[in-house]
């Protein structure tokens, strides 16, 4: 796969993940507004998410979409702000790893509520 084709695919992946995120973020904002009424407690959060497969699937899709979308965006910023520095690839990969591992951990965490 040539460099140009790879760039084209990255662009496409970022836009597709953007479409998914558009829906996820809109739903997430609604959930945020609903959840923060009367304050936020661990009990309340887990009460909604623990054992709830729909929530778990929704948020895992959310995490995976972020995992694609954010690192590509950050890579572009780094390439343009610090050209030829070699920073773009390692930092965006680091972000990708952090988002996928910490994100999935978080989803497992709120699904299981600590009872693993």
């Amino acid at each position, binding site marked *: 796969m040539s460099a140009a084709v790879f760039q084209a695919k990255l662009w496409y992946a970022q836009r597709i993940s953007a479409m998914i995120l558009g829906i996820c973020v809109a739903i997430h904002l609604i959930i945020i507004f609903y959840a923060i009424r009367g304050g936020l407690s661990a009990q309340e959060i887990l009460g909604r998410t623990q054992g709830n497969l729909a929530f778990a699937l929704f948020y895992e899709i959310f995490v995976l979409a972020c995992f694609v979308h954010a690192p590509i965006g950050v890579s572009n910023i780094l390439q343009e702000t610090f*050209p030829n520095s070699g920073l773009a690839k390692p930092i965006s990969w680091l972000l990708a790893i952090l988002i996928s591992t910490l994100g999935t951990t978080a989803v497992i965490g709120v699904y299981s509520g600590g009872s693993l």
Partner: protein
Amino acid sequence: MSHTDLKVKVWRGTDQGEFVEYLVPRISNQTVLDVVTYIQRKLDPTLSYRFACRVGMCGSCAMTVNGVARWTCRTHVSKIVEGDSLEIAPLNNLPVIKDLATDMREFFNKWKGAVGFFKGDQTRHDDFAKVEPQSEERQLANAGIECIGCGVCYASCEVVEARSNYLGPAALNRAWTLSNDIRDVQQIERLRAVAGDAGCHACHTQGSCTERCPKAIEPTASIAGLKKLVARAAVKGSKWGKL
């Protein structure tokens, strides 16, 4: 005739230099080109600048006026003057030959690099090509066809500034019009040329090109068209072959 003078700062030098201030009598209906011409003819004959038609058809007189790329022959001083001051500099993103004249070779080389030129496979012995004027492709091509290569969009683009190999809005706009030309036979080479970060995918839709084009062409639209065309070709293949 007004007796107040304009304070006009003009860039003198090459990529290194300084702004020199000249006092130019203010006249009604004066354009920025009139001001530059006055300076060169009456105040300082060593000033270098470009112009040709002086009626807004050729694009040669494009310069940076108060930080914004414009055609100086079509820019009335009264519209953009700040108090009684003007700042005139060469077009951004292009090397300066001298004073207000820039080296446009990289601009036109990128045009070539984007395969922004036509190549057909018919000869004088063949029948005329039949291009339906109302067809979607022809209308898309027509929307961008009036570009005269003045460089204002290229000079206004921050991505051109940030990425030295980015082909730029004018080259990509021309590539798009040719992608929609059913007679052209270099489509797959063109798609390869405009793919990637040197090409259409580096565009961040800042829209400065569309905002500043003196002919109201919208390179942002053309580049958006290319992005879709190339992405589809990269993933699924195009009607002209695999990328």
